[in-house]
C-alpha cells in the first residue's frame, strides 16, 4: 500500500492509496456538506442536490450519464448524511480513468429546472418510502428531539413541505457555496496509476473557484425529551434512544466504538444476552455515531407492546450497571476481536478502503493506514472505556417511540 497526496491551488485535496494486488479500483468525491449545513427553509437540499448531480451537465443529459456509467460496469452511487455527501464508484482498473473523468464533469452539474421538477417527485417518493420503514422513521424523529435546535437534528430528506417549496434557483445558490474545491476531497483506492489520475484531476478541477466555506461547529449534550407517536398501521413498538458521546475528532473514538459492540452488537453483546437471547425483543442495537465536533450513541429496539415496559426497564438497568461497574476485560477482548476482523475484511476490498480513506481525511485531515487503526483498537483499555462511561452516562437519553395505540 502506498499513500499519495496532492493539493490543488484552489484547495481541492486529491488522495490515493495504491494497492497493485487489487482487482478493482474505487473513486469517491467527498463533499463536506449535509443537512446540518442547510438553512431550514431549504431543508433537504443537500440530498436533493446529490440526486441532481446525476441529472448531468451542460453537455450530458441524465440518460447519457447513466449510460456512461453502465457501459463500464461500474458499481456507483452516492449518499447524503447530516454531515456529508459522497459520490463513489467501484470499477475494474481499466475503467477508472474514464469514470474519474465522468465524476469530475458531473461535479459541475447543469441543475436544469425541468430535471429539478421531475426529480422532486422522486424525492417525495423517497420520503414516503422511509415513512413505511418505522425503524428508520423513529431514528429520524429521535434525532430531531435529541438535537432540538442543533443543526445535526435537521432531517436529511427534508419534509414534503420543504421539498415542495424549494426552487431550482435556491439549489443553485447552495451548490455554488458548498461544492467549492476547498470543501471537497477526491479519493482513490485500489489498483490504479497515481500520476495519471492526479493529472486528470488537476486538469479537470484546477479552474474551480474556491469559496469561503464555513460550518457551524457546536458540541451538544442534547435534550432529554421523551415523545411518542401512535401509527394505526404498525404492529410493533419501535424505540429509539439517543445520548451524548464524543466527536469524530476525539482520540477516544476507538474506545467508544468498542463500547458500542459490547453494549449492542447483534450477537454476544449485553443487549443480545439480556434482551434478544431471552426473546423479550426481536432486535436491539446500539451504535456510536461520531460527528463533526459532536457525537451521540443511538439505541434501536423493536418489540411487542406488552414487552415495552419490561424492555425499557432492562435497558435502563444495563445502562446503570455500565455507568457504575463498567465493562470487563473479557468483554473488551471479545469486542476487540470482532472489531478487528470486521475491519480487516472490509478493508480487503477497495470500495471498503475508500470510505475510511475519504472520511479520515474529511474529519481528521489525516491519512491512517489500516495498521494505524488496528494498533489504536488494540491499545484501548477497560479503564479508558469506563472513564468514557462516567463522562457520558448512557442513561441520559432522549427517547422516541413509534407504535400502535399505546398500551397502558
Amino acid at each position, binding site marked *: 500500500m502506498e499513500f499519495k497526496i496532492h493539493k490543488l491551488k484552489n484547495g481541492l485535496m486529491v488522495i490515493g492509496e495504491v494497492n497493485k494486488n487489487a482487482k478493482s479500483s474505487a473513486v469517491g468525491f467527498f463533499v463536506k456538506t449535509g443537512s446540518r449545513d442547510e438553512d431550514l427553509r431549504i431543508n433537504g437540499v443537500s440530498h436533493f442536490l446529490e440526486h441532481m448531480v446525476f441529472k448531468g451537465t451542460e453537455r450530458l443529459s441524465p440518460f447519457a450519464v447513466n449510460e456512461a456509467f453502465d457501459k463500464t460496469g461500474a458499481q456507483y452511487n452516492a449518499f447524503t448524511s447530516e454531515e456529508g455527501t459522497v459520490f463513489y464508484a467501484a470499477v475494474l482498473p481499466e475503467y477508472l480513468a474514464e469514470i474519474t473523468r465522468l465524476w469530475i464533469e458531473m461535479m459541475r452539474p447543469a441543475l436544469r429546472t425541468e430535471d429539478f421538477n421531475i426529480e422532486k417527485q422522486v*424525492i417525495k417518493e423517497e420520503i*414516503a418510502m422511509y415513512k*413505511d420503514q418505522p425503524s428508520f422513521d423513529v431514528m429520524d424523529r429521535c434525532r430531531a428531539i435529541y438535537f432540538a435546535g442543533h443543526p445535526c437534528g435537521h432531517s436529511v430528506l427534508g419534509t414534503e413541505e420543504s421539498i415542495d417549496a424549494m426552487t431550482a434557483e435556491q439549489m443553485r445558490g447552495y451548490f455554488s457555496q458548498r461544492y467549492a474545491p476547498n470543501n471537497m476531497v477526491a479519493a482513490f483506492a485500489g489498483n490504479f496509476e497515481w500520476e495519471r489520475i492526479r493529472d486528470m484531476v488537476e486538469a479537470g478541477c484546477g479552474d474551480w473557484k474556491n469559496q469561503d466555506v464555513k460550518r457551524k461547529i457546536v458540541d451538544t449534550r442534547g435534550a432529554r425529551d421523551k415523545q411518542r407517536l401512535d401509527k394505526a398501521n404498525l404492529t410493533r413498538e419501535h424505540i429509539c434512544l439517543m445520548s451524548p458521546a464524543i466527536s469524530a475528532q476525539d482520540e477516544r473514538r476507538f474506545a467508544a466504538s468498542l463500547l458500542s459492540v459490547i453494549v449492542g452488537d447483534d*450477537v454476544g453483546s449485553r443487549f443480545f444476552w439480556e434482551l434478544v437471547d431471552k426473546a423479550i425483543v426481536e432486535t436491539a442495537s446500539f451504535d456510536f455515531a461520531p460527528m463533526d465536533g459532536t457525537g451521540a450513541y443511538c439505541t434501536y429496539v423493536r418489540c411487542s407492546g406488552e414487552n415495552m415496559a419490561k424492555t425499557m426497564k432492562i435497558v435502563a438497568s444495563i445502562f446503570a450497571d455500565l455507568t457504575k461497574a463498567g465493562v470487563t476485560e*473479557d468483554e473488551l477482548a471479545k469486542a476487540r476481536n470482532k472489531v478487528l476482523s470486521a475491519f480487516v475484511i472490509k478493508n480487503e476490498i477497495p470500495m471498503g478502503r475508500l470510505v475510511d480513506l475519504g472520511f479520515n481525511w474529511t474529519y481528521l485531515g489525516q491519512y491512517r493506514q489500516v495498521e494505524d487503526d488496528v494498533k489504536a483498537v488494540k491499545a484501548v483499555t477497560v479503564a479508558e472505556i469506563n472513564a468514557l462511561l462516567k463522562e457520558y452516562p448512557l442513561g441520559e437519553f432522549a427517547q422516541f417511540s413509534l407504535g400502535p395505540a399505546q398500551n397502558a
Partner: protein
Amino acid sequence: MKIDKGAEGGYNRRFFCGMDSDMKQNLDKHKLSNGMMLLGEPMEAVESVAFSFMLPAGAACLPAGCCGAANVISDWIFRGAGERDNRQLGDALDGLGLQRSGGVDSAHISVGAALEASNLSSAIDLYGDIILRAKLDDEQFAPARQLAIEGVKGLDDDPRHKVMLKLREQFYPEPLGRSTAGEIADLEALTPETTKKIIAENFNPAGTIFSVAGKYDFDAVVRQMEKLFGSSVAGRTKSLKTGASGGRYKHIPNDGAQVHIGLMTPTVILQDKNYYNARVAVAVLSGGMGARLFTEVREKRGLCYAVGAQYHAMKKAAGITCYAGTTPDKAQQTFDVIVAEFNRLAEGISEEELQRAKVGLKSSLIMQSESSSSRAGSIAGDYYMLGRVRALDEIKAEINKTSVDSVLTFLRKNRFKDFTVVTIGPKEIKVG
C-alpha cells in the same frame, strides 16, 4: 485418522481453470465418504477466510404444518453444543471475532462466518459441535421459537420486505415458495420433539455442502472435516413433490404511505441453455441506472424512488422478480409502465444496451471475486444448483457468447406472461 478418497476422485484436487490473468482461479474439492461435499477457493492477497455450511433443511424441506421451523432450528442449534452451554458457546464464537452469516432459504439452512484466517480451525471445531452435537435443551426451545414468531410479526411493519416474501409464496409451486420467515400458527404449534425430529431427518451429510474461500490450507481443512463429520451417517436423500402455485393477484391492505408492488414472471433455470440469455435480458431491463426500468419509471416519469428487477432461481424453478414502491395515486401507472417494459423487451434491443448489460454482469462477477464471503457462497450455490462449480472464465465466456440475436430469439420464444402480483398498501391495482 482416515482420509477418504471421494467418489469424484482424489482428495485435495485443485483444478486450475484460469486462462486470462484477471480470472486466475483455483478450486479445491473433496467429498467425504458420507457424501458431504467440501469446496474451496483460495484467494491471494487476503488475510481473511469465509466458510459456510449449507444444510438441506430449508423451508421447503419441512413437513406440512411446520412453516418457520427452519428459523427456530437455526437459532436453537446455537443455544449450546458439545461441552458448552448457550452462553459459553456464544462467548467462544465471539472470542474468535467471527462475523457470523447465515439464514434460511427454500432449500437450505446456511450457517457460517468470515474471520481472520488464523482462527479458521477453532471456528470449524465449534461449528462441528453446533451441527452434530447441539444440546437442543427444552428450556432453550421457547425463546428460539418466540424469536421466530417475533420475526414474522415484525414483517408486518416492513412492507417492502414482506411483499417479496409473499410474492415468492404466490409464484412458486408449493412448497418451494413457502415463507422462509414462517407462519405464526405453525410456529405456535411447534414442539421441541417435532423440531428435533426435523433436525434428525434433515441434517443429512449426503446433502450438505461445505465451502471455504480466502486464506486457508485445504489439506488441513479436509483432515479436520473428516475427523469431525466423517463418521456421521448419510441419510436418505428426499425428493420434493411440488404442488400448485398461488393465485395471480393478492392485495394486502395496509394504511402506509406507499403501495409496495411485487411482480414475478417465470423464466429459465440455471441449467437451461438459455440461462445467460435470460440474465442478459434482465440486465437490459434493470442492470444499472441506464437500464430500461430505471429510465422509464424513475428518470422520465418520476414515479418511484425504488424500482428494480432481478433474476431469482431455485433448482427447479426460476423467475424474474420486480419491486416498486410508490404513493397510491401513482401505483396503477407504475405497474402499467413496468409490465409494458417487460413486454417491450422482445420487440428489440440495441447493440449498446446489450454491451452495457454484458459489461455490467462481467464486472460484478470480478468485483465479487474480491470478497471471501461472496466466493464461499457462490461456489456452494453453484454446486447445489449444477452439481459442479463454474469457473469465472466459463461464466465470462458464456456472457460473451450472447448477442442481440440470441437474446431476442430467447425472448420471442419465451414471452413474459403469467405475472404473479402482490401489493401491500392503501390501494389495490388492476392487474389486467
